């Protein structure tokens, strides 16, 4: 499985917050959702922090191009 993109993680986090804010989640589920949200937040922050720009040169398949 490919690693999920930052955008996907952020979208899931936003959805969790929106669900929790509606306030109709049973309390056990709410706590589970909260934990998941915290994980997502930490994963997002970790991806932003200390990242170094990667530069990859693509070699032309046809050298004439």
């Amino acid at each position: 499985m490919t690693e999920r993109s930052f955008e996907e993680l952020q979208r899931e986090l936003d959805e969790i917050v929106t669900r929790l804010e509606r306030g109709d989640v049973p309390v056990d589920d709410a706590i589970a959702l909260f934990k998941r949200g915290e994980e997502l937040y930490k994963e997002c922050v970790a991806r932003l922090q200390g990242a170094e720009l990667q530069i990859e040169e693509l070699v032309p398949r046809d050298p004439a191009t």
Partner: protein
Amino acid sequence: MPKVEHTVYGDRKVFTVSAFNRGIGMHLGRLPPVWVEGEVTELRRNDAWANVFLTLKDPKTGACLSVTIARRTYDRLELVLVEGETVHVAGRAEIYELKGELGLRASTIERLGLGDHLVALERLKRALAAEGLFAPERKRPLPRVPREVGILTGADAAARGDLVATIRARFPATTLVVREARVQGKGAARAIVAALAELNARAEVDVVVLARGGGSFEDLLPFSDETVVRAVASSRVPVVSAVGHEQDTPLCDLAADARAATPTAAGALVVPDVRELALALEATRRRLRLALRSQVERDRSRLARQGDRLRAAPRLILERRRAALDRSGARLQTLSPLATLGRGYAIVRAGGGALRSAADVASGDALDIQLAAGSLGARVEDVRP
């Protein structure tokens, strides 16, 4: 006419450089004004400058001539010249004294009709526009946070450097996939199409930037080539066109999903600012925590209300029973014979039970009459059944 100063060394007249240039300038100034035909290149106009500069090029030999014209004169002509257009310029030869460069001081410029390239370009532009290739509804939104950014660039260190620097400063948490391609001259269109296809083939590339610095009209022509324009329009991922300078509009600009005036602007378009993103994440986390807290708070107060009701229940039952008892007592009271006696009735007894019929007694029988207060002993005197 002022004399050109010189110094005499014996039999030798020696001029300073400036005096020489000025002297030549004076000679040039005596030549009659002429018309010169050529293609406009390197047109430079700035509101802050007194003059507009351009170079006239001979399309056959490539020979060049610098032209200056007063900015006000140029603006009054309302020409909106495009690079590559053929014009007629009227003016006098002059020399730029500081550099000793020959130029043409223009008094007016006339458009001679669009150059062949421009005509062909205009025709292609109309055809592609009619096909709907440039329609606004075709434009796709750029990804907010691209996994990989594809960069299609020539061996143009400046454009590439600006783009990389901007992306590094804004959002280093990404990967740039750089594909260098021949972007001008023969075979450039084919090279650009091939490079774009290779970038599109990379699964994680979410957006492609065409980064090409400024250049002459001819240099930028490949970016108006029909195959390039179609490749941009049919790209799998959105394309940002950062080709040429502000005033250039190669056709790939019109087919691209977004256009950037400079590579730096393109960098700002394709990646978010990591600081803004971090702030947004913090805000989301605060909402997350607040949402859980208010959820728990709601549950706790609901629980407290339920507890209160539970504790109040026994007392409530007792109160209800007492009230019911009170109501029964009151009803009992109204039914009691004693209450009836209170209203003036009497109970008459003869011997045992209460007397209900006059026929049950005879004259002379003893009666006991009970009143609300006390009782009487009496005798029957007359019976009227």
